[in-house]
């Protein structure tokens, strides 16, 4: 799963800390999300999308590993 959180976050000019506090999370979680090392729950994904003013599909894209 890849995401564009960093890109959209920088677009609206907020820091990782600010985004984390908006979605009731820790900055480390946002760091790992941006690095693609952690997959969020649907609730967290929804909250992040809402804060960034995008849809979940805009931010997260799932690449099926089995597809050819």
């Amino acid at each position, binding site marked *: 799963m890849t995401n564009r959180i960093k890109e959209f976050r920088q677009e609206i000019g907020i820091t990782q800390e600010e985004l984390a506090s908006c979605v*009731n*999370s*820790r900055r*480390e*979680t946002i760091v*790992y999300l941006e*690095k693609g*090392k*952690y*997959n*969020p*729950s649907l*609730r*967290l994904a929804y909250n992040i999308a809402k804060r960034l003013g995008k849809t979940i599909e805009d931010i997260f894209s799932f690449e099926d590993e089995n597809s050819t």
Partner: protein
Amino acid sequence: MQGGKLMKKANIMIVALFGLFIISLFSLYNYAVLNITNLMVSFIVFGILLVLVVLRYSPLIQREQDERTFVIAKAAVQYSWVLTFLLITTLFVLSILGFVLCSNQTLLGIVLIFMIFSYFVLNLVFDKTAAIRE
């Protein structure tokens, strides 16, 4: 609304704890072992559980809300349990073969300390290495 629900849960937990405490006292009385030591142990256990319930459900205490923290803690507990079961099995086999001879108290101490220690270490490792991908 959320606070009211939490308080209701907390009240139910406290009543349940008190009920268990009374049952434990009755059972101690029935088995004629209601001495001061057992009574003190019952009070201490009841007190610890009461403090835990209050800490868990108090609306005044700001609790951790980060989901990754919960995911890591859950994984650390699971891995810790598995490792502890492996340790118990290993000690059991070694004791059957006669390589290890220790009392029940020592064995229980080793298991409990290993369980708690491994939980904290695994929590730290998962947090730093981002090994858990929920």
